[in-house]
Every structure is written in C-alpha cells, then in structure tokens.
C-alpha cells in the first residue's frame, strides 16, 4: 500500500473511528470529547499532508471496488478537493471545540448521538473531497445527507421533525430525481464518470443532451440551495448553533457548491460550459438567487435566519462562478468557498455564543449587548466585513476575482447582482455589530442567562476563525495559485 | 374434405354442441346451487358423448369419469358442508362481467378466424406433429393405442407433471380439511344405513366388481381407451361407495387417511423412479428403451411381442405399464383423500346413504 492510499484511508478512517469511539465511550463525556479533539487534530494533519502532496504534483489515488463496468468506487485528490478537505477538517476541529462549549453550556440532551452524527458527517465530507468520480461523490454526498438528518432533528419536537422532513425530502428527492439520472446520463455518454481535467464529456456532445445533463446535475446538487431548491436551508435553522455552523459553513452547503464546481471543471470542462446555453440560464437563476436572498435576509429579524438567507446568496456566488465560461471563475469560486466558510462559521459561532450567553436570538434585542461581550461582537464585525468583501479581510480578494471574472466573460447581469448584494449585505450585517457595539447603553441590553457569559471553548473557537478571516487576506494569493490548475488562465491575465 | 364421411358425424356434432350451449345457459341461469351442480354433471356427460363423436375416446372416458363423477361428488360434498341459501343475483355486478366476456369473445372470434377450418386434415395442427405420432408409434412404442403411447411415453413428462398436480391437490385438500378439530370422527351413535339392506347387499356385490373393472381399465389402456388415470378414479370409487353405505368411520378404520396419503406419494415415487432407473441404465429420464439393463434386455427372446425387429418395445411396454400403475396409485389415493377431507368435515349424517 502506497503512502497516498494510506493517507486516503486515514482521512476516511479517522472520522469513522471518532464516531465509533464516541459511541463506545458515550458514558464518559470527558474521554469522549478529548478523543474527538485528538481525532480532529490528526485529521487536520492528514488533510494538510494530502494538500501538500497534491500541490507537489503526485496526488494520492486509490481504487476500492468496481461494482459495474464504468462504475468505480475510487478516490483521487486534485487541488480543489485537497483545499476542500483542509478547510473542512480544520473548521471541523474548531467547530468541535465550539460545540463542546455550546452543548455543555446548554446542557443539551443525547450529546453522544450528536457527536456521532457529527463525525459521520465529516466522514461523508472527506469522501466527497477525495472522490475520484461522480458515483463515489454521490455515495458520500448521500451519506452526508443521512448523517446530518439526526442533527437537524436534534430537538426532537414536532417543528424539528417537520424541518427534518423538508431537509431530507428536498435533498434526497433532488438527488434521486435529478442527480442520479444526470450521473447515469454522463456515464452512458462518456462510458465512465471519472473526473478528468478539461472535462470528461467529449467536446462534440449534442447541446440538447448537454443542457439537460448540466441542469440535472446543477439542480440535483440541491445542497447548493439555488432557488427554487433553497427551502431546506432556512428550515434547517431549528438545529442548534454548532449544527448550523456545520451545515452552512463546513459540510453540507459547501459539499453542494463543491459538487457543482467539480461537475463544471471536470465533467463538462470550460469549453463545453462555454458552448452550452444552459450555463447562462443557470447564471441567471444564480443572479436572481443572489439578489432575492439578500433582500430576504434584510427583512429577517432572527439572526440565524438572516445568516441563513445570506448563505443562500453567497452560495449562489460560487455556483455562478462555476458556470462562468471564463476559467478563472473556477479558481475564484474555490477561493470564495473557503473564505465564505471561514467567515460564516465565525458568524454562526458568534450567534451561538450570544444565544448561550443571553438567550437572545433576535437582532432587535441585541442593541448594546456588545458592552457585555465585546470580543464576540468584534469577531462578528470582522466576519461581516469579510462577507461583505472589505479589506482587510479575505472576502475582498474572492469577491474581486468573482466580479472580475464575470466582467471578463461579459456576464454583466451576474456582476451587477454580486455588487448589489454586497451593498445589501452591508445593510443586513453591519448594523448588527454596530448597534451592539456602539449603541448608547440602555436598560434594554440583555442580561446573561448563563453565569460567566460565553463558554470558554466557544469563545476560543470563534477567535481562531476570526483570525482566519484576516489571515486569509494575506494568504489569498497562495490559494489562488494553488487552484490555478483548475483554470487555464492565471490571475494576472484576468485583468480586463 | 370428404362430404359423405363428414355429414352424419357433423350433424351429430352440431346437435350436441347446441345441447351443450343450452345446458351451459341453464347453469348460468339457475339460482339453485344443487341444480347447477347436477347440470354440470349432465354437461360433462353430454360433452363426453360429443368427445366420442370427435374420436377422442380416452378423453371421453376421462371426462365421464371426472366431470360427471368426481367433480359432481366433490361439489355436492362441499355444498353439503357450506349449506348455502339460493344464489343471489345482482344485476349491477353482472354488467362488468358481461362487457368483459363480450370483449374476450370478440377477440376469440378474431383469433379462430385465423385457424384452418374444422376437420381439415391438412391443417398445421393435424399435419405436423400429430401425424408423425401416428406414423412413428408402431416403431417407437409398438402399442395400438397411440393416445396412450403419446401420453405415457412421448410426452411422459407431461403425465408425470399431471400426476404431481393431482398429488399437489391431495396435499392441498389435506392441508385444508384433513386436520383440525373435526378431523377425527366420533363413532356415529346409530350404525348408519341400517335400514338400507338393499344398498348394503348391492354394495358388497359391487365393490369387488369395481376394483376388478379398475384393473381391467388399467391393463386395457394400451390396447383401447383407458389408462392409469381413469382406472385410478374408478378404483377410488370403491372406498367412496363403502364409506357412503357403511359410514366413513368404518372405511377410515379399514383404510386410514395417513396410509392413503402415503400411497399418493408412493405413486409419484414409482413414476419418477422409473425415470431414474432409465437414467441409471444410461438413458435419459423416462427413456423406457433403457428401462432394462442390456443384460436383461438380451435375455428377452426376440419376437416375444410378435415383432422381432423391435425387441426394445419390451422396455416401452413395461415402462408404460409401470408409470400407469404409478398414476393409478396417486390418482386413486388422492381421490380418496379428497373424499375423506370433505366427508370428514361433515357431521355423521354424510355416513348414511345419501
């Protein structure tokens, strides 16, 4: 067994191991959580080494089984996947830290099942990141869906079960009715589903079929929450904050957009995307999604709901990036995926921290809360800036590249939508932090419901990601270069 | 097609068919179950006559024995058990079937328009395989009754299946009616039929004759109409008659139900066993030419069957006889099992003569 295979097995095995351990020692919370953190750290190391190897040009590969001709169950790392893997594992580690604080702080029931599903979800994510073909990706994609279902329904009350039904119904339904036929269509045209640089489908594919397949696959990946398949995302807000963080930053939605990026880059390839009118249709849908989502977010008073809708918008950025015939779009999309992940997880952890500390969920009640917990709201401010795309945060670069790419490819509508939504996001994000931090002290400021305010681990986690938001501002160039193999053209040439 | 030959038989054929149609209409019409059942018996008898006109002697025999005999008895037994009222007729529920029937009938008429006309000797059905049976039988089998030859040798596998079907029916009836609370009959309070002196005398006289006749039919099978199946049913009549006259209790005492079931299984074993023996001697399944080992075959003096050129017919003869015996065993015992099942369910008064 080569080193690469060993790495892959470890990357897959560690989350499973974590799940088993959690199940085994569920009785003893301390042991359970220590072991989980250990697994997280180890996973981070593994993914990073994979990242390095992939960058160095000998990507690990592994072939598990071949159920049918043209249907392999195999793994192969490429830059985007490696990046996704690192991002997911690191954020998972941080998120675990946060959730430990959160769950203990809120004394949530049945934490063992919670952590188990958490680890299983991470197993799914690792599989998605390293999948060598559409089939393998699909398998782990569904594992992820099923593993996160109990997390969404964690509360167990009627509302939670209803949300869970929407969640499962939308995701599974979309993948059965749209995604699977899409995969099979690809397989029956190309004879396999392997991700191949430059596009698996032959250039001469009949446009009609190409359009159909593209639409099937893009909308089949309902985790990307393009309108009209976005309904599950706000509904899933009933879940506790760490779950929301996982869903919206690390695992689920990112898996969706990641799938779309992979499909665009490795199944269709820039040329075919350029040729297909369906790409433009998707772009329009994405643009509409961006604007609509931002407007809705503006109208929401519940903080988590607001964040959720902003996520819908931000995901649409990445989806449209994947559809930009201009190959840099892919790089930009990959980069925005990471940046948004970091920023959004910070926001959610802040929201969770606020909730644990004060029990407040509505924006209108947070006026002046910043006096009591300045750190949290400062972090919130930083993350907001990153999301809006202002220096000195990483968001700036990714948005710049995105707008740039869409201009460069003459997609004015997309560009306009992005700019507009950035302005709108100023409107729905900044006031939260400002009102909390700089509002005059009033008697309305919420009190701590929990002695000691924010639990320590949660705070630490938030700080880490907050630093990440700024740190990526400097590291952006590196990421962009790392992702370069995706597109044919380098950053410098993209200037209009 | 030959005018003189056809007319007489054709007129008879038409008359009998019209008669059958009339009887069928009566069956559909009547409200009384018993009437319907007896009409079924009449229908079977009439169709048996028609079958004779159609040169299907064996089938006529079987139809008479089964349709008019066994079916009627079983139907009456069941009716006795369920004690139904008059059949209710509801016009609303009769419409859909009528439509269905008309549709299927139209399709059938369309279908028969594709068939050769009746009695045509050069029609595919009569020209191809059917004729070659007539031609080949003297060589391959060497018995006069071609129907028996085809039944027991050429298509012996079908007959094995048929035997198994009967066996399965026996199993089914035994599973349904052979067990449970009322399966064991109490001794009837009064000796049944003690005021039926005439019947008992007649029965004593008849039962041996019936058995004798059954074996006559069995052994006569390859010369004329008859064979294991008909013989089996006839043989089964003996115990049934005994039970009707002397009471089921006496009969089960003489021939226990378990024993009868065993015999049914035995019959299948005999039939299949013949096939296995043929395989053991290097032939195919049911290949009677290999029924005997070559050594035994060699011992048979040539010409013993009149025809020195086909000494292997010896094997055919014995094979056919043995499988017919197997059929006889299974059929007769299954018929008795069925009778036991229905009669055993009933209260004692079935035992008395009716």
């Amino acid at each position, binding site marked *: 067994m080569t080193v690469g295979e060993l790495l892959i097995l470890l990357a897959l095995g560690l989350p499973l191991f974590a799940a088993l351990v959690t199940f085994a020692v569920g009785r003893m919370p301390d042991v359970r959580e220590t072991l989980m953190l250990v697994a997280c750290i180890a996973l981070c190391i593994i993914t990073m080494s994979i990242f390095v190897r992939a960058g160095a040009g000998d990507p690990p590969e592994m072939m598990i089984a071949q159920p049918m001709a043209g249907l392999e169950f195999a793994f192969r790392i490429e830059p985007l996947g490696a990046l996704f893997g690192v991002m997911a594992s690191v954020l998972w580690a941080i998120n675990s830290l946060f959730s430990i604080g959160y769950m203990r702080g809120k004394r949530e029931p049945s934490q063992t099942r919670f952590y188990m599903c958490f680890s299983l979800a991470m197993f799914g994510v690792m599989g998605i990141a390293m999948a060598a073909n559409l089939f393998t990706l699909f398998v782990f994609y569904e594992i992820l869906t099923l593993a996160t279902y109990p997390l969404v329904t964690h509360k167990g009350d009627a509302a939670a079960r209803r949300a869970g039904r929407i969640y499962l119904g939308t995701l599974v339904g979309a993948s059965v009715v749209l995604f699977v036929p899409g995969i099979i269509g690809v397989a029956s045209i190309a004879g396999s589903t392997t991700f191949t640089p430059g596009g698996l489908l032959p250039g001469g594919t009949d446009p009609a079929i190409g359009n159909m397949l593209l639409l099937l696959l893009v909308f089949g990946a309902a985790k990307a929450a393009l309108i009209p398949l976005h309904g599950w995302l706000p509904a899933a807000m009933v879940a506790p904050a760490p779950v929301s963080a996982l869903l919206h930053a690390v695992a689920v939605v990112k898996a969706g957009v990641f799938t779309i990026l992979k499909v665009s880059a490795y199944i269709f390839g820039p040329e075919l995307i350029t040729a297909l009118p369906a790409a433009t249709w998707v772009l329009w849908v994405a643009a509409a999604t961006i604007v609509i989502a931002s407007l809705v977010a503006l109208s929401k008073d519940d903080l988590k709901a607001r964040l959720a809708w902003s996520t819908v918008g931000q995901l649409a950025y990445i989806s449209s990036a994947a559809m930009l015939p201009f190959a840099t779009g892919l790089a930009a999309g990959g980069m925005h995926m990471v940046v948004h992940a970091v920023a959004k997880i910070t926001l959610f952890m802040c929201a969770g921290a606020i909730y644990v500390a004060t029990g407040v969920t509505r924006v209108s009640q947070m006026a002046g809360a910043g006096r009591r917990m300045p750190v949290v709201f400062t972090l919130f401010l930083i993350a907001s800036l990153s999301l809006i795309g202002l220096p000195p945060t990483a968001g700036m670069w990714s948005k710049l590249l995105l707008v740039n790419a869409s201009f460069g490819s003459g997609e004015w509508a997309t560009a306009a939508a992005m700019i507009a939504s950035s302005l709108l996001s100023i409107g729905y994000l900044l006031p939260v932090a400002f009102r909390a931090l700089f509002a005059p002290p009033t008697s309305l400021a919420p009190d701590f419901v929990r002695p000691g305010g924010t639990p320590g681990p949660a705070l630490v986690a938030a700080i880490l990601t907050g630093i990440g938001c700024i740190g990526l501002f400097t590291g952006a160039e590196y990421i962009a270069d790392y992702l370069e193999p995706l597109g044919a053209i380098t950053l410098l040439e993209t200037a209009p | *097609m030959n005018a*003189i030959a*056809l007319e007489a038989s054709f007129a008879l054929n038409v008359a009998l*068919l*019209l008669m*059958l149609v009339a009887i*069928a209409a009566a*069956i*559909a019409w009547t409200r009384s*179950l018993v009437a319907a059942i007896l009409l079924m018996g009449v229908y*079977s008898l009439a169709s048996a006559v028609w079958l004779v006109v*159609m*040169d*299907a002697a*064996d*089938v006529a025999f079987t139809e008479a024995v*089964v*349709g008019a005999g066994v079916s009627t008895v079983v139907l009456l037994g*069941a009716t006795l*058990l*369920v004690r139904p009222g008059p*059949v*209710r*007729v*509801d016009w609303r*529920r*009769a419409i859909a*079937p*009528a439509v*269905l*029937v008309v549709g299927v009938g139209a399709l*059938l*008429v369309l279908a*028969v*328009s594709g068939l050769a006309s*009746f*009695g*045509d000797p050069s029609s595919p*059905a*009569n020209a191809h395989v*059917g*004729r070659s049976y*007539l031609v080949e039988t*003297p060589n391959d089998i060497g018995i*006069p009754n*071609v*129907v028996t030859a*085809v*039944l027991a040798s050429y*298509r012996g596998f*079908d*007959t094995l299946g*048929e035997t198994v079907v009967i066996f*399965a*029916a026996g199993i*089914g009836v035994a599973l*349904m*009616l052979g067990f449970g609370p009322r399966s064991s009959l109490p001794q009837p309070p009064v000796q049944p039929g003690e005021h039926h002196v005439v019947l008992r005398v007649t029965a004593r006289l008849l039962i041996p004759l019936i058995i004798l006749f059954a074996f006559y039919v069995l052994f006569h099978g390859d010369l*004329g*109409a008859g064979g294991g199946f008909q013989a089996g049913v006839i043989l089964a009549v003996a115990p049934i008659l005994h039970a009707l006259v002397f009471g089921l209790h006496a009969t089960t005492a003489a021939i226990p139900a378990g024993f009868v079931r065993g015999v049914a299984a035995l019959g299948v074993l005999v039939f299949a066993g013949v096939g296995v023996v043929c395989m053991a001697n290097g032939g195919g399944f049911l290949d009677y030419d290999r029924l005997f080992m070559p050594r035994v075959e060699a011992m048979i003096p040539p010409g013993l069957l009149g025809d020195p050129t086909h000494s292997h017919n010896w094997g055919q003869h014995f094979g056919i006889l043995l499988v017919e015996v197997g059929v006889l065993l299974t059929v007769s015992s299954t018929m008795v099992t069925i009778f036991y099942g229905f009669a055993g369910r009933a209260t004692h008064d079935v035992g008395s003569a009716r």
Partner: protein
Amino acid sequence: MNFVVTHFNYLAVIVLMMTGLYVLFATGNLIKRMIGLALFQTSTALLYISLGKVAGGTAAIKIYPDSPEAQALAAQLDPAYVAQFGVSGVVYSNPLPHVLILTAIVVGVATLAVGLSIAVRIREAYGTIEADEIEAVRAREPGE
C-alpha cells in the same frame, strides 16, 4: 356464412367458454364461481379437441387395414383421400390434442378440489360464502 359453417365448432366453444367466464365473474357465491371456472376450463378442452378432428377419421387406436372395421371405414371415404391423409390405409384423428386435454382435465379437477376445500374453510371462518359478505366482515377487522 361459410365461415360460420367451417368454424362452427370454434364459435360454439367460444360461446361455452364465455358462459363459464360470465358465471365465474357475475356471481359472488364461491361455489357457483368454482362451477363457472370448471365450465370455462372444460370448454377450453373442447377447443383443442375440435382442432384435432380429422374429417372421416377414427379414434387414434391402431387397427389393421385388412380388419373389417378398417374396411368399413375406408368404404365411406374416397381412396385418394385415404391414400393422402391416412396412415397405412386408415384415417385417424389427431391424438396429440387428446393427450393434452387428458392432462388439462386432470388439472381442472385438481383445481376444483382445492378451491372447494378453501371455500369450505372460508365458510367455517366467516360463516358465509358470499364474497360481498366476506368483504363486509373483513372491513370490520383491524389493520384493514
């Protein structure tokens, strides 16, 4: 019209079969249904037999050409016909359908016996053999 004559047997058999089918589906009485079924099956047998009839033929039991009955039979037919369709001087009907129908009849009686035994058990379990009443009883049961 000629068709009606040449195919009279088939048409009559169709009428019989359809009568059986009608009886089977039109009544709710289980025993009457079994009667209809038996009628249907028997009539199907008649179709086969009609297929196997050969004009001027006799039962497929070998008789020597020089025996008196063979002579009597041959006397009614013209020699050319006998020569063409006869086997060694005698015209026989087709034995194959007879064999098939022997089997079919047996299957029919087997079905009849099993069906009636089930009907008896139904009577014992439900107290009726009318389909709609059974349905009524079932409708009252849990899990339906």
